[in-house]
């Protein structure tokens, strides 16, 4: 059917063999741009900014390089490149690392798979066989994974991702403290150095509703001790409701009160700010956390469990004028400023808190949606009682931005490693799967199955091969040496020797390696089944690659 249609040359529709040749060309060009960035001894890519006023970008992340390439001049090649680009970006958002390796594996599978299909192989059956090998590879990887402990091991992991010892050391220290779920903000700072800062307690976005409530006018911050907490999404309009709330808090024995509400009217605010009221009971009012109603509901739920409060919700008809002493939560300390409010020493039931966190962890483990996972992780991180801030400074804005992105990317990859463990790095773990793949290829009776295992056996060495080439080594010679060594052994390109990679601290996140294998195999297998390309009549804006 496709050949008949091609003979009529339908405009905008591309058929074989032009389809595969075009896609392969595009994939090759994209991979060629990414390949030099792999490994500890690598090169960078400089990308021109669209605006003449902007500075060029210095990049070494496969996914970001791919993302910056928004179109190739040849439209057939562009389709192949954009297909791979989309896969790499999805991988980047999910895992934060491994995109260069995934691109190389994808390229090898697609190239060799195409050769098989062109010589008469069945693309759909090949796809089926390629994907059926995934569980075997994942089992092999899982068998080699080891969990990380301590800041030294975490720092070594970070160094295999970012290749910057100073940044790696800081991230190792940070994650040793905040853990897999802990909250980390990476911010550009004015200085030249990188330094961490640790903040005790939990905090939420939701600033103080009036600067007049600040106990320290210079910093604009209200500090409360031994305070009652009222957690709500109410819109407070009536002064009488506020008075009732204050009286009830005083009856409950509170010396200070943190009022969390969606909004407060001017009239109600003036009651809160009245001096006699402030003298009797120090009050700070902060905006309820979260932009959407779901965010607010979740934020209030977490706050309530932390402090023992009963959340007052508009949806259930609660109001400030009906608040009772048992509705308040309690905390040792609370604070609020223009942007945020925070609590430390929440006096909620610790068992309930631990059960709540366990439930959030279970929900995280069973959720594939990226946004939902991020939200769950943020909630768990907040509830664990602290966060870290990594300030990054550098005199050059380009380098500063690159370093900030590198730190964020490394942090994301480290979280995966802390959850699933680490594998021998430098592509060694995937290379260790090669012998079993070759064995399967040898045993297979079905030609498509044999082809699939053979293709995968070649593909799993692609990252190691590229890494060795980038370091100026002769890949075939070293791969022969590695084939005779223990499966944990790989090649340390910095020290020019074969080592036990885990012992040497050269590790990769197990979650990232697993994901790069799965995405590359599935993506390439699907790409092999593409027979027809359909171009739009009006092409999007061009971006020239020269």
């Amino acid at each position, binding site marked *: 059917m496709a050949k008949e249609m091609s003979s009529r040359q339908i405009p905008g529709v591309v058929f074989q063999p032009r389809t595969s040749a075009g896609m392969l060309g595009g994939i090759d060009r994209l991979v060629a741009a990414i390949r030099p960035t792999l490994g500890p001894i690598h090169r960078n890519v400089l990308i021109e900014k669209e605006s003449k006023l902007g500075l060029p970008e210095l990049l070494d992340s496969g996914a970001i390089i791919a993302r910056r390439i928004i179109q190739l001049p040849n439209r057939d090649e562009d389709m192949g490149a954009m297909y791979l680009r989309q896969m790499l970006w999805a991988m980047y958002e999910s895992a934060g690392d491994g995109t260069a390796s995934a691109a190389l594996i994808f390229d090898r599978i697609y190239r060799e798979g195409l050769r098989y299909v062109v010589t008469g192989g069945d693309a759909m059956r090949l796809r089926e066989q390629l994907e059926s090998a995934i569980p075997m590879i994942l089992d092999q990887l899982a068998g080699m994974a080891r969990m990380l*402990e*301590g*800041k030294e091991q975490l720092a070594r992991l970070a160094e295999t991702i970012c290749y910057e010892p100073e940044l790696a050391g800081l991230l190792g220290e940070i994650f*040793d*403290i*905040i*853990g897999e779920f*802990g909250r980390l903000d990476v911010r550009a700072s004015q200085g030249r150095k990188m330094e961490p800062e*640790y903040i*005790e307690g939990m905090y939420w976005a939701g600033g103080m509703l009036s600067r007049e409530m600040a106990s320290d006018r210079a910093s604009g911050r209200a500090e409360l*001790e*031994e305070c009652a907490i009222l957690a709500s999404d109410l819109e407070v309009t009536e002064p009488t409701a506020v008075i009732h709330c204050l009286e009830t808090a005083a009856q409950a024995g509170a010396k200070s009160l943190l009022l969390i509400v969606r909004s407060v009217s001017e009239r109600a605010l003036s009651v809160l700010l009245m001096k006699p009221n402030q003298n009797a009971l120090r009050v700070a009012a902060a905006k309820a956390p979260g932009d959407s109603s779901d965010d607010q509901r979740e934020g209030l739920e977490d706050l309530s469990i932390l402090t023992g409060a009963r959340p007052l919700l508009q949806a259930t008809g609660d109001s400030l004028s009906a608040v009772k002493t048992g509705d308040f939560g309690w905390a*040792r*300390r609370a604070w609020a400023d223009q942007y945020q409010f925070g609590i*430390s*020493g929440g*006096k909620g039931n*610790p*068992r309930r*808190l*631990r059960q709540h*966190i366990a439930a959030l962890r279970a929900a995280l483990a069973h959720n594939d949606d990226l946004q939902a996972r991020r939200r769950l992780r943020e909630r768990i991180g907040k*509830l*664990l*009682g*602290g966060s870290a801030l990594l300030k990054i400074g550098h005199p050059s804005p380009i380098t500063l931005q690159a370093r900030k992105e590198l730190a964020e990317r490394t942090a994301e990859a480290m979280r995966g490693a802390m959850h699933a463990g680490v594998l021998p790095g430098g592509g060694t773990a995937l290379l260790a799967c090669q012998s079993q793949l070759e064995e399967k290829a040898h045993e297979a009776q079905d030609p498509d199955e044999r082809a699939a295992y053979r293709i995968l056996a070649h593909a799993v060495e692609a990252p190691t091969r590229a890494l060795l080439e980038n370091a100026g080594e002769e890949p075939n010679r070293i791969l022969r040496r590695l084939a005779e060594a223990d499966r944990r052994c790989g090649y340390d390109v910095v020290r020019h020797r074969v080592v036990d990679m885990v012992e040497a601290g050269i590790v990769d996140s197990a979650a990232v390696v697993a994901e790069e294998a799965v995405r590359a195999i599935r993506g390439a297998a699907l790409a092999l089944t593409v027979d027809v390309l359909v171009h739009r009549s009006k092409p999007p804006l061009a971006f020239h690659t020269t």
Partner: protein
Amino acid sequence: MESRQSFAASTPIDCVLQFAAADAPDAEGRYACFAARASGLFRSQDYGQSWIPAYASLGASEPLPTSSVVLAPDFKRDRTVFAGLNGAILVSRDGGVEWQRGHLPSPLPAISALATSPNYEEDETVFAGTAEDGVLISQDSGRKWVAWNFGLLDLNILCLGVSPDFGLDETIFAGTESGLFRSTNGGRAWREVPLPMGFDPVLALAVSPRFARDGVLFAGTENNGLFVSADGGRAWQGLAATASVGPVNQVLIDAGGDRRRLMILLGGALIRSRDGGKTWQTCKEQVPGDCSITAALALDDAERSVLIGYEDGSIARFRAGRRQNRTRSTRGRRARA
């Protein structure tokens, strides 16, 4: 056997909460011991034969209930004592005569437990468990204290246990109202340690002197008896003979590291095991008819002495299983303003 005399407690509940004793005599041959009680801190120079109030220099007009006391590991040379109170940590650098207040975060915490780093001479690190503020750490010999509670989901600390190899492994355990937590970075961050029975207050901890090699750790709970781990706290086994009898308020393990030899305070009674907790016998130090025991300390002397504190505030010293004396009148010697 001495007969008990009845007497009135000077405070409504004046029990002995904790003992601490030096490992060796000082240059003058004195064996220092301290007893933390609801009526204050008491000091002995003769390994518990006689006691005097330790806070005399403070000139306080009211008793200063003291929940915990710990000595610097090299007390013989260092002479440093830490005492935990409600809202204060007092530090003495002359063996318990003069005292200074450590600087604590606000609002002032109630101290429930104290422990020093075994490497204190080099790292000057001391840990304090609190009733509502988690764990405080001092890295300047008790002068300034800060809270480090990342991951510590229960801030009500009941007991602390520090690894003897803390200088290398930075490991410390905290028993809380809902269970057990562990830090492997010197207390800067904590992780939950799941116990087989779920949530239960962990009242007592004891870490093997050979923890780096054997990974042995004991945890005494309120409702489920005594648990032991042999892998640094990852997996736990309950010692069935101790379950459902009463709270395990204290665990004493053999100083030589023989994990078969244990003593525990179980439901107010002191019992001993010689087979790692499979079977238990009432200690000779447990006298029938005595009121509940609230604290015990095995002294590091050749006579295998044991100090016992009772719920009525009295203290007895046993040598080789025989009671030598029982002190009751320590309360009457409070300093007056």
